């Protein structure tokens, strides 16, 4: 057991990227040529400015806008939202009645969704990573399908299935009880849980895949049975499991779409819906929204503290130089059948029902019942002639590529810092920043951007950031950074420090050793984080609506504009086309990775792709 959980007490001395002394040694050693000297000096300088620049970026992108929004809870006058410079009245009014009840409901639903998603995500991870089951490629893409589905389509799907006159009632299985159960807290938690499964899967799949079979064999050699294997290796996966739980919990309590569609009819107040209402009324109640923001931050903060408590005491590094690819379990016919049954059952609920929703809302002739004969492509005719939609697609595509790339670089740095054993004040500050950002819904962050970057004082010093594509790009990055760094936390915690030590001892610089020793092991996880951000950014709505400059129309805004023009069917058809483009891109990138990535990058965690 002790051999498995490798102690890496000297790890930190080698991973400190701004370690000037190590750079000096190197520069002395490599003074063979002027070119080499210059190269080393440049790298040295980069390493020295690296962290300050990183913090400036983080401050501009996350800290300042979040703070600008949250401060409104106590000082509405600061951004022209009331007369009081300091007031706690928003807290006292928000900590009662519907607002408090909404927060309570959000927490309960978030916990249920997180447990459900982590359980299902681990099952999918085990099946796809460690068995010889059939149809892995299809299921991998299906997981992305779940991630991309809009809440509206999911809700419509369930309605078509369960409602009076729906699919179930046509086979005499209509049940008002089932309908009420679904359009209530249970259904709400189920949808959030299903939407959380991809996050959970991304957090656990890499570690499950990279937990080389040598550990398992070691236990078996020492006479341990299956239970022993589970008992010993289960805890090694803890960081990933906690990552999954916390990411899904945070995504669930901060979820907007499902809350807007399901919560009002479930007569079930949740925090984000209350926040939505506070922001949508005129004049918008930013102070109350900010208080709800504080509550969300606190709740997610507590969840992360619990995660911290359980994962910080021990080390979980398993991805070292000797790690080998995990052995694929050869499952027999009955085992295959059982796993496939589980997979089909899950995907029928997670994807089949929304497909029903997509069919009925974009292909079913108006006012007709669900049957094959009533389906038609009428809404899809001519959607590509919609003025400007092509340029919207191109714009969102470019932004998604840019944002995914920036977010993965930053998220990797954040995750590395958060998993290092010597966290220190800076690390804690970073943790708090990411907690705040993960807990604040996109709309809140976008409003924070307006407060922070539309200040008259900025314009008076000639800084016209608000109303530019740059600010939109920053908001996209802010929205993506927290979840992508949380997804990378689990895999990052498993990297053995000895890998870096070995590289550094052999004369590599910090960055180079990281690139050569760690990057290959993390490549699959980084790719997922990239795709996750790409997919999210391509169809991002709240920041796009509030921050896109005049004349620039991201895809999601274009779709909403068409829906607002009373063209329900064409709008839904467009959103399905955009979804398919999004999914197509993901399939393409996965295939390119499979073909082009060096073999070593794929071998360790490669079966995930």
């Amino acid at each position, binding site marked *: 057991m002790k051999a498995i959980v490798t102690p890496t007490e000297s790890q930190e001395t080698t991973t400190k990227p701004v370690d000037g002394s190590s750079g000096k040694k190197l520069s002395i050693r490599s003074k063979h040529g002027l070119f080499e000297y210059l190269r080393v000096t440049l790298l040295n300088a980069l390493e020295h400015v690296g962290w300050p620049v990183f913090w*400036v970026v983080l401050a501009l992108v996350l800290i300042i806008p979040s703070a600008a929004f949250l401060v409104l809870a106590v000082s509405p006058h600061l951004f022209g*939202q009331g007369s009081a410079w300091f007031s706690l009245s928003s807290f006292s009014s928000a900590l009662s009645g519907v607002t408090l009840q909404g927060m309570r409901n959000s927490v309960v639903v978030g916990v249920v969704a997180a447990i459900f998603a982590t359980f299902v995500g681990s099952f999918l991870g085990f099946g796809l990573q460690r068995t010889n089951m059939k149809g892995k490629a299809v299921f991998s893409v299906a997981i992305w399908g779940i991630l991309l589905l809009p809440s509206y389509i999911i809700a*419509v799907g369930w309605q078509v299935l369960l409602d009076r006159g729906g699919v179930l009632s046509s086979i005499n299985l209509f049940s008002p009880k089932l309908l009420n159960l679904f359009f209530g807290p249970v259904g709400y938690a189920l949808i959030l849980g299903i939407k959380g499964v991809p996050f959970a899967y991304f957090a656990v799949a890499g570690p499950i895949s990279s937990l080389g079979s040598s550990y398992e064999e070691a236990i078996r050699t020492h006479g341990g049975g299956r239970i022993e294997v589970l008992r010993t290796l289960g805890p090694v996966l803890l960081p990933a499991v906690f990552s999954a739980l916390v990411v899904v919990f945070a995504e669930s309590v901060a979820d907007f779409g499902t809350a807007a569609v399901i919560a009002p009819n479930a007569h079930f107040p949740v925090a984000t819906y209350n926040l939505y209402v506070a922001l*949508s009324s*005129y004049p918008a109640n930013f102070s109350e929204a900010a208080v709800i923001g504080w509550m969300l931050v606190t709740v997610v903060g507590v969840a992360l503290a619990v995660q911290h408590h359980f994962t910080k005491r021990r080390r979980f590094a398993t991805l070292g130089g000797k790690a080998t690819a995990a052995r694929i379990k050869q499952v027999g016919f009955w085992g295959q059948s059982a796993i496939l049954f589980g997979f089909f059952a899950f995907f029928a609920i997670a994807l089949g029902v929304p497909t029903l929703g997509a069919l009925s809302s974009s292909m079913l002739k108006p*006012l007709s019942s669900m049957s094959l004969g009533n389906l038609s492509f009428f809404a899809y005719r001519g959607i590509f002639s919609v003025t400007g939609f092509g340029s919207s697609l191109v714009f969102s595509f470019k932004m998604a590529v840019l944002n995914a790339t920036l977010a993965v670089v930053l998220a990797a740095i954040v995750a590395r810092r958060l998993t290092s054993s010597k966290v220190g004040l800076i690390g804690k500050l970073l943790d708090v920043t990411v907690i705040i950002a993960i807990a604040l819904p996109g709309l809140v962050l976008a409003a924070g951007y307006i*407060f922070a970057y539309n200040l008259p004082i900025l314009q008076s010093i000639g800084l016209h950031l608000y109303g530019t*594509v740059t600010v939109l790009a920053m908001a996209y990055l802010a929205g993506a950074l927290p979840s992508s760094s949380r997804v990378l936390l689990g895999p990052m915690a498993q990297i053995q420090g000895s890998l870096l030590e070995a590289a550094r001892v052999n004369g590599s610089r910090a960055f180079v050793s990281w690139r050569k020793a760690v990057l290959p092991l993390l490549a699959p996880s*980084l790719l997922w984080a990239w795709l996750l951000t790409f997919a999210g950014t391509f169809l991002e709505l709240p920041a796009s609506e509030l921050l896109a400059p005049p004349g620039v129309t991201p895809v999601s805004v274009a779709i909403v504009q068409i829906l607002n023009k*009373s063209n329900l069917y064409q709008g839904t058809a467009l959103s399905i086309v955009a979804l398919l483009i999004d999914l197509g891109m993901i399939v393409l990138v996965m295939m390119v990775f499979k073909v082009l990535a060096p073999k070593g990058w794929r071998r360790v965690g490669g079966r995930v792709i």
Partner: protein
Amino acid sequence: MLSLGHISWIVSIAMNQNSKLRRSFKLKAMGLVGGISAVTLSACGSSASSSATPSSAAAAKKVPLVVYAAEGYDAAIVKGFQQATGIPTELEDHSTGTLLAKISAEANNPQWGVFWSDGSESYAALDQQKMLLRGFEPNTGTLTPLGKSLVPADKSYIPTGTTIAGAIVYNSNVVKSPPTTWNQLLSPTWKGAVGMNNPAISGPTYPVVASIMDQKGGVSQGEAYFKALAANGLHVYSTNKVTLGALLQGTIKLALVQNSAGIGFEYTNPSLKVAYLDKSALLPGIIGIDAKQPAAEIAEAKKFADFVYSKAGQALMLSGDPHGDSLFFPIIVGTKAHKVVPSLASIPTDYPNPVVWGPREASLNQWFTSNIVQ
């Protein structure tokens, strides 16, 4: 640990400082992880706006006019206005709720020159905050008596046409005799059959709530009515889209939505019909001009309102969104409504005083969310 991407990104932010024109940008991010070398991003503004600078002398006078609008025909009008005047105009086309949230958040440093959406209540509230230009009326068209009745005493906003906020849309194959009064909706016939939007989220729904409360004799009587409606199984959805979707799928039998949206649906689904209850709330389209902008932009905003009242502007309003907002009741003498739009004289209407009901919007929406939605 630092990639060149960080640096070039910061540089791009710095380079974008001079972005008052807000039209073309280049973001460059180079040398990023994993072999992704460079992504160059050029996001161009609308072609019409970026090319409208005929000569440098004229361009010096013409600042960009920023129009926040939530009308289906706004893009057509903005295009026509630019062609007619040469004034570079930037359109932000979103839902009323989104635009109001933006306007609220920008209160410190307003970015809009013209705000055009349905419902006068929020304009009355904006006026109370001294955000609207007062005392201006376009002189390019003459208002009908109905139009005149929609103009506020301080002339702080400009009505451009009107629709009905809470019309009943129903499927005539299913519903043979639609209700004619608000009280009928409380009867067992319509139990669980009525759907409406949440006024806190859907901009044009608050006037329905205000009008019903006004007709019932006050806030407390109105609240009692909505509680009875909720007890009779009222469905509340977030926006028109979802409410009409529920009607099309048969979840509800009566959808309480804006009449122009309902008439628009008649085009594609002839069995859908629109009925009006006694009395139906008028929902005027309104233009407000930002009082805090520099004189040059205010002058352009006035020209914009003039253009809307002109014959060319009225024609564009009627053609810009033929199955939606273009189905309004005109209030300019000489403009004729679409044939499918009924005569307003046949519909009993109500227009609650926006100065009274506007400031109540936030608290009543909150009440509605707490007591009816949840």
